[in-house]
């Protein structure tokens, strides 16, 4: 009998504000320890939190982007637990009245067939604002732990999904789409190495149609690869456990990326008794319609809308549309290229996803660091489209544009890459070839059609590779037929 894997994700996206959520200390990454931890972050006596408008606005942007209800009134609560990197003894979070209610995210999940995807809608339960804790450093202090509170008070948006995902691939697609979206709308830099985007995965297994199984939560997955590996390992472990007659106990587990396995954390029985209550230091947060509409007016066109438009209006495949909207920069590049090479969406898509991406990957750059501008690329593609150059000549032009820059038309001119389309000249070449190779002509005319390739080779050589291949083939066929 089959098992069904059920996954829900909690993502912590660090909001890209300059200052912290409740204090005026800087959030810049990589500063000397504790140089960005002010009296509020340290919980010194007598301080009070004051909420950062920029953090609220980013949460609203997100809510609008996932079609969620924005709470006109939300409340901050204290989540109580003791840990040295949490100076107040509680984290300010939101509990029963979060800022963002139910929404949804449409994802494209790759299938085992390359280039094929299927669409799925994942429901979002909620998203709420909270502060991050500091960092504990456990090495090199002779039995002591070092505490850096620079990160304490950094604004986070915790985005909680429904348990709607049924495979590691779906979970990864969802996480990637969310990652694209938060960068797209400019609320989070998405830097996973620096911890700006962290995933917790709730995983359970069940027989199809049965009640949800007991879940275990995998904490702090900071790469898509680890997310995939951790879910696959955990689901298999749960299936094996159940098939061997065991039971699953609710637990928090960590993923050991070196061993590729999940491991339960030793947990105290009271670990999850957080005794939430409304924070008396903070008043309810009110967001009026006017503010929501202001934010809505600054939202860019969203990836899903672009994808739909690319497929419906430009005739691209869902896979192409999905790839081209993997970041806002990529989509902008594509549209600017298409602006030059009008009506050549497929050609633009092929070059962007092909030669451009491959060259970027080779040099470990992203699209914002592309040495070729969309105007240059589009200018070149325009010349493929109007028949001035062949695809192989375009590759030459591309190489020059990449390494030296310049104007595509000038490069075509100086490198002599123009395709020959002078029919008279091509016919003359073919006549010469036929005269010079009577034996092969006779062979071809007696039915050995394989010899045709030989003539194509000679013709392309005679034209120094510049002949328009389709035109040349047509002339060859006509002349050889006699």
């Amino acid at each position, binding site marked *: 009998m089959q098992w069904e894997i059920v996954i829900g994700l909690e993502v912590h996206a660090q909001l890209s504000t300059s*200052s912290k959520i409740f204090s005026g*200390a*800087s959030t810049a990454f990589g500063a000397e320890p504790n*140089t960005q*931890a002010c009296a509020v972050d340290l919980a010194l006596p007598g301080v009070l939190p004051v909420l950062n408008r920029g953090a609220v606005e980013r949460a609203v942007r997100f809510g609008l982007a996932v079609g969620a209800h924005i709470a006109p009134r939300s409340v901050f609560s204290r989540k109580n637990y003791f840990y*040295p990197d949490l100076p107040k003894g509680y984290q300010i979070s939101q509990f029963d009245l979060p800022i963002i209610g139910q929404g949804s995210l449409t994802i494209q999940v790759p299938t085992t067939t390359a280039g094929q995807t299927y669409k799925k809608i994942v429901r979002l339960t909620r998203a709420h604002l909270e502060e991050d804790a500091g960092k504990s450093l456990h090495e090199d202090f002779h039995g*002591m*732990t070092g505490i850096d509170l620079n990160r304490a008070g950094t604004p986070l948006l915790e985005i909680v999904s429904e348990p709607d995902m049924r495979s590691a691939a779906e979970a990864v697609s969802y996480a990637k789409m969310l990652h694209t979206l938060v960068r797209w709308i400019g609320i989070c830099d998405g830097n996973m190495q620096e911890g700006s985007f962290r995933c917790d995965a709730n995983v359970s297994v069940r027989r199809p149609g049965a009640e949800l199984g007991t879940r275990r939560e995998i904490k702090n997955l900071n790469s898509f690869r680890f997310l995939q590996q951790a879910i696959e390992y955990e689901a298999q472990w749960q299936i094996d456990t159940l098939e061997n007659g065991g039971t699953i106990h609710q637990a928090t587990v960590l993923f050991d990326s070196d061993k590729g396995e999940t491991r339960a954390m030793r947990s105290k029985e009271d670990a999850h*008794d957080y005794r939430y209550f409304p924070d008396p230091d903070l008043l309810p947060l*009110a967001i009026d319609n006017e503010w929501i509409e202001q934010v809505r007016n600054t939202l860019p066109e969203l990836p899903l809308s672009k994808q739909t438009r690319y497929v419906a209006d430009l005739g691209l495949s869902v896979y192409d549309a999905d790839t081209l909207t993997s970041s806002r920069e990529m989509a902008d590049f594509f549209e600017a290229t298409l602006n030059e090479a009008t009506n050549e969406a497929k050609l633009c898509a092929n070059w962007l996803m092909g030669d451009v991406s491959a060259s970027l990957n080779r040099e470990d750059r992203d699209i914002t660091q592309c040495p070729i501008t969309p105007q240059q690329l589009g200018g070149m593609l325009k010349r493929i489209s109007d028949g001035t150059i062949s695809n192989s000549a375009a590759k030459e032009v591309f190489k020059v544009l990449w390494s030296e820059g310049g104007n595509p038309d000038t490069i075509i001119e100086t490198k002599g890459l123009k395709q020959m389309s002078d029919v008279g000249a091509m016919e003359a070449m073919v006549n010469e070839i036929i005269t010079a190779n009577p034996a092969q002509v006779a062979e071809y005319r007696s039915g050995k059609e394989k010899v045709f390739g030989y003539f194509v080779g000679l013709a392309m050589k005679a034209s120094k590779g510049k002949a328009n291949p389709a035109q040349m083939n047509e002339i060859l066929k006509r002349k050889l037929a006699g």
Partner: protein
Amino acid sequence: MSLSINDVYKVARLARLGMTEQEAQTAHAQLLNIFGLIAEMQAVDTTGIAPMPHAQDITQRLRKDVVTEPNQRELFQAAAPQIKNGLYLVPQVIE
């Protein structure tokens, strides 16, 4: 709503408070009084009244997203029992 002596010990443990049996008994009695007060309030008919998360019916003022706090590490760390390389040192907490 009633509160057992075990509840008192549990809450004390969560709050990292060490309590003697005598102290727990005293706290238990005091907390039961508070629970009594709550029970009295629960008896009031609050149908149709939205719960207030704060005693004052006003909303949060927001600050601009600007950095206003300078680095005062030396000042703050002057009060710390132990520091090293800019870090606060605490007894090891790793499990």
